[in-house]
């Protein structure tokens, strides 16, 4: 592969909590390993390129989420990317809209049906640190992030939870996020990959068609220190 093209979808609608961070982390980790990266920001009034190698979609409020889902359905490129096995990382509102349906502005909207799940409203807003033990077959270690959402997500048969919750709420207080094939969705909002570099590496490995273990190692002293701090903060609060 010559250049890794990473598309960040709809920053004009879905970029509420430093969502750009995931694009920056992926580009940094790829370039450190000598992989060229072409980051591409695609606005909601532009066509989505279907030749990209990876797609990112972020979080946002109800109104923009509903508009984003409608435009993504019209465009069709994200569904085709999922069918083609391209890695997709979806955060919070972006995660919800990959499902069969989601709630916004007080009613249900059709999602993209890329992930077998549906979302509705929870009894209260989930705000705070979230941590969990990730699905072992992903090899990404425990997860750590910050969540801020009012939705609850119910997983169907065709997806696996990304993690079992050890702190925070996630999907429903028991599980957090979902994955199937090369698609990962999570309630860890904004720059989730900055605290979970092994998820970043998993996405990169999928994009270049290798095993994460075959990626050249990176000095992760600082991300590991940050992870340790956040896990410790969560434990101290419990």
């Amino acid at each position, binding site marked *: 592969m010559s250049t890794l093209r990473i598309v960040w979808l709809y*920053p004009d609608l879905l970029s*509420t909590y430093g969502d750009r961070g995931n694009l*920056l982390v992926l580009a940094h980790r790829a370039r450190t390993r000598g992989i060229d990266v072409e980051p591409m920001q695609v606005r909601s009034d532009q066509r989505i390129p279907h030749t990209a190698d990876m797609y990112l979609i972020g979080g*946002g409020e109800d109104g923009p989420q509903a*508009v984003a889902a409608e435009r993504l359905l019209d465009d069709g490129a994200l569904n085709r990317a999922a069918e083609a096995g391209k890695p997709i990382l979806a955060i919070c509102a972006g995660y919800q809209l990959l499902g069969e349906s989601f709630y916004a502005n007080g009613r249900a909207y059709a999602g993209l049906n890329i992930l077998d799940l549906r979302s509705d409203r929870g009894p209260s807003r989930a705000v705070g640190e979230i941590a969990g033990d990730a699905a072992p077959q992903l090899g990404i270690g425990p997860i750590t992030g910050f969540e801020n959402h009012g939705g609850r997500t119910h997983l169907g048969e065709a997806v696996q939870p990304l993690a079992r919750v050890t702190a925070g709420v996630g999907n429903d207080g028991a599980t957090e996020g979902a994955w199937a094939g090369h698609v990962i969705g999570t309630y860890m909002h*904004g720059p989730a990959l900055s605290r979970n570099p092994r998820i970043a590496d998993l996405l990169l490995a999928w994009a270049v068609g290798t095993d994460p273990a075959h990626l050249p190692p990176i000095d992760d002293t600082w*991300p590991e220190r*940050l992870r340790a701090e956040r896990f410790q903060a969560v434990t101290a609060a419990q």
Partner: protein
Amino acid sequence: MSANLTPRAKFATTLLRTAAALSRATGRGDGSVIGGRVGLIVEPRLLELLAEGRHVVLISGTNGKTTTTRFTTAAIEAIGKVATNSFGANMPTGHTTALAKAPKAEYAALECDEHYLGQLLDAASPKVVALLNLSRDQLDRAMEVTALAAKWRQTLQASAAQTTVVANADDPLIVWAASVCQRVVWVAAGQSWTADSAICPNCGSHLDRFGEFWRCTNCGLNRPSPQWSVAQQGEAVVGPDGRRYELNLQLPGRVNRANAATALAIASLFGVDPAQAAPRLSEVASVAGRYAKVEREGRHLRLLLAKNPAGWLESFDMIDPNPPVVLSLNAREVDGFDTSWIYDVDFTSLAGRKVVVTGDRRTDLAVRLEVDGVDFLVVDDIRAAIAAVPPGPVEVVANYTAFQDIRAEFNRVN
């Protein structure tokens, strides 16, 4: 003014001053909030009564309101006494205290929290309202900022016709909110964070930008021609008739020249000659510790407060190109517990200089800087940061509680 106060309002004012003085004497802060609270319990209409008969300006926006209020006060003091909430107590309790403490002031320059603007418009019947900018911060995320602009628009539409609005022509949210007013003076005050106004607040279509000009592709909302602007060359403000008013500010950066332009626009509405007001702005050396210069062991620190992405970008624009930079980040309750927003800030302009990071969440900053390819050194606190840089000038950028921690290290420098 206070000569016309009812006995109850006079009593409330006395109690307010006593409570504020007690609070100061017992070291619980400057007493603005507690004093105002006591006064408003005794006389709920106290703010309204104290404001009556004075010429009031309200100054609001996400960033720059404390500094602009200070500049405005300095400018209007050219013609009379000014009551002002200089301690940053920018809610009605603080406004009440500011007015009670200056019974003889004919003018009032009040910094106003964005969420209290409507209430203040009712209570203070201002002659002028200045609207600086709206962007995301810890409490108001992107879409909530648009909702706030909508609320302002509604309030301003209902407000008295004698109010003149001084508004930032470069911020689409501000323009949309202010454009319902009959009398608007537009200032080209700049916009350092455009991501919250990619979408037209009026119709939801995309905004097109060409240089400083912007317009909606659908409904035609666009940048009004400003009457006041910051000079392209040199340090000056250009007024409505094209006349230049030279500035010699102690406060750094284009953003403070823009704050000066807004202050001069306000002052001229109060009948102050801008040529007389402009030199007075040079007397402002720091604002509640912001921009303060302190010295320790040969290190000359300049303290910059930056609470949100726009504020950090403004700071990076202000700092001198060569000295080492200390960055300090906390995530306590008033800062917001979430540090995600640091990924909304581009740190690449710091690459190649000495960067020292500290604060409760220094590790978050370390990871952030690594991603942007900026070399850094992590230290435990401001003392260690000072020890880590050579003698000479040092720029310090910190978010709210991190800034207060550093101020405390220097005897709460003002």
